[in-house]
């Protein structure tokens, strides 16, 4: 298999953009990635568009505005891991030699108001009031508190850290610092999760130009290697939306843990080698739990990472230097590729005030509906 690199990345900011068409958002992210890579659109040989709430053939509709070059274009979806599916297909196509240059991009534009719960939940769940994503996070958080002593204060600190990191991220939705008191006293959503501890589904677009190392050498000044890209689904049981029940027997490793282990093995890199992590903080406690599942610390000690400053920029292992989902929201199709763009910039030393000094290896993680998760490891 050939070495696979990312030659360029591009983002459309995360947020809410009213009537702005998703076609424009997607095109802007792709055009930025092509420019960053120094690669012409006509050189791209295939494209994968990750999206969850957009209509059929969104990818083709976006890309025709750059010129209809006749390449295969597929929309792909795996809930919160959609972007990782796009990236992993591009990875496979490049590593195997099928193609030299592939576009992996993701776009999301939510319908106005709340997400349609029927996209995920069954009718009876909606009627009984169980179609509430933060409910699952909160129930997991409450048990983590009971089992390991995680605290609402630790969760608040996670939120404070991520909001602080986002201050200088021009693509983040929220760029305002918040205090521990503000987080704890913000409106309760699902105990113990307050409004400032939870991420919002929103809009955005992200793109990565994936190519062979050989091709990149001729075009890109600063390619970043894709050392692993591992999307996986959960073994039974899966406790997260839209689960209705789970096993009370000892559970097998979580899908995040399994994806991470495979990624570490594929990359020949362990958690101790990581310089930064972008992970799925759909809520503040999810950062704590995911840190443990990814092997960044022993099980039950995720709260210490923020208590001891380890996960801050400047700490031993910065987590979510971009501000994470808490500050960027979750433009679902774009979310993993947004993490990828941030990590590429970090590894190139281009992250400005939120730069993790000397970063050489970064991990990106997503997990969500349908038991989908993915771990990607990038290195320079």
């Amino acid at each position, binding site marked *: 298999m050939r070495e696979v690199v990312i030659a360029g990345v591009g983002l459309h900011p995360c947020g809410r953009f009213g009537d702005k068409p998703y076609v424009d958002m997607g095109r802007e992210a792709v055009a930025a990635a092509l420019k960053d890579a120094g690669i012409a659109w006509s050189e791209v040989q295939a494209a994968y568009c990750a999206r969850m709430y957009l209509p059929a053939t969104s990818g083709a509709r976006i890309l025709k505005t750059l010129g209809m070059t006749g390449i295969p274009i597929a929309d792909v979806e795996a809930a919160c891991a959609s972007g990782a599916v796009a990236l992993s297909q591009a990875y496979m196509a490049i590593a195997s030699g099928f193609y030299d240059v592939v576009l992996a991009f993701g776009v999301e534009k939510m319908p106005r108001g709340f997400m349609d719960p029927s996209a995920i939940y069954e*009718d009876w769940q909606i009627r*009984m*009031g169980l179609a509430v994503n933060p409910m699952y996070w909160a129930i997991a958080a409450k048990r983590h508190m009971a089992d390991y002593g995680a605290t609402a204060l630790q969760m608040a600190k996670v939120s404070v850290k991520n909001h602080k990191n986002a201050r200088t991220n021009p693509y983040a939705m929220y760029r305002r610092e918040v205090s521990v008191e503000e987080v704890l006293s913000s409106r309760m*959503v699902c105990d113990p999760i307050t409004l400032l501890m939870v991420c919002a589904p929103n809009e955005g677009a992200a793109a990565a130009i994936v190519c062979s190392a050989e091709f990149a050498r001729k075009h890109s000044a600063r390619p970043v290697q894709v050392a692993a890209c591992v999307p996986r689904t959960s073994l039974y049981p899966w406790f997260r939306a839209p689960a*209705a*029940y789970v096993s*009370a027997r000892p559970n097998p490793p979580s899908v995040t843990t399994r994806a991470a282990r495979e990624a570490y093995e594929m990359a020949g890199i362990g958690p101790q080698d990581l310089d930064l992590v972008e992970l799925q903080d759909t809520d503040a406690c999810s950062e704590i739990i995911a840190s443990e599942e990814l092997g960044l610390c022993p099980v039950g000690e995720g709260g210490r990472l923020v208590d001891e400053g380890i996960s801050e920029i400047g700490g031993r292992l910065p987590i979510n230097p971009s501000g994470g989902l808490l500050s960027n929201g979750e433009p679902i199709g774009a979310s993993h590729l947004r993490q990828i763009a941030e990590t590429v910039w970090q590894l190139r030393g281009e992250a400005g005030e939120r730069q993790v000094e000397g970063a050489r290896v970064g991990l990106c993680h997503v997990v969500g509906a349908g038991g989908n998760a993915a771990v990607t490891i990038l290195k320079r």
Partner: protein
Amino acid sequence: MTDAAETANVHSKKRVPIKEGFLTTPLSDLREAKLQGSRCASCGEVFLGIQHGCQSCGATGMETVVLSNRGKLYSYTVLRNRPPGNYMGPDPFVPFAVGLIELPEGIRVISPLTHCNLDSLHVNMDVELALDRLYEDEEGSEVIAFSFRPE
């Protein structure tokens, strides 16, 4: 969900479960009906409702199993905002708790918690099943939903 509906032994309306296969029949006496599930004949894993195959081991031999109406509160939260979509609960909205209930059959079920004080909930507390009319469907049948409440 009203106490009146819950305690009514005699009723003239047809009753249907919120999801086919989730409850034992008949539903004429809601104090007698229970949650129903499927047990994998191969690995023993228990699931809620009717299953064609085992999500754990993939075997297709499944036995119907009646689930205990007493369990322990494995974890819980309180929903402070009205759930989206076609939520059938009280209007105006009243915050309510949702728990993950561990049953002796080796399954944990997500369920609303009713007839309880939101401030007195705690992990591992004993809870029991409560079946109530949630709404009336288009055919005029009473749709029966499940919840748990402190014993």
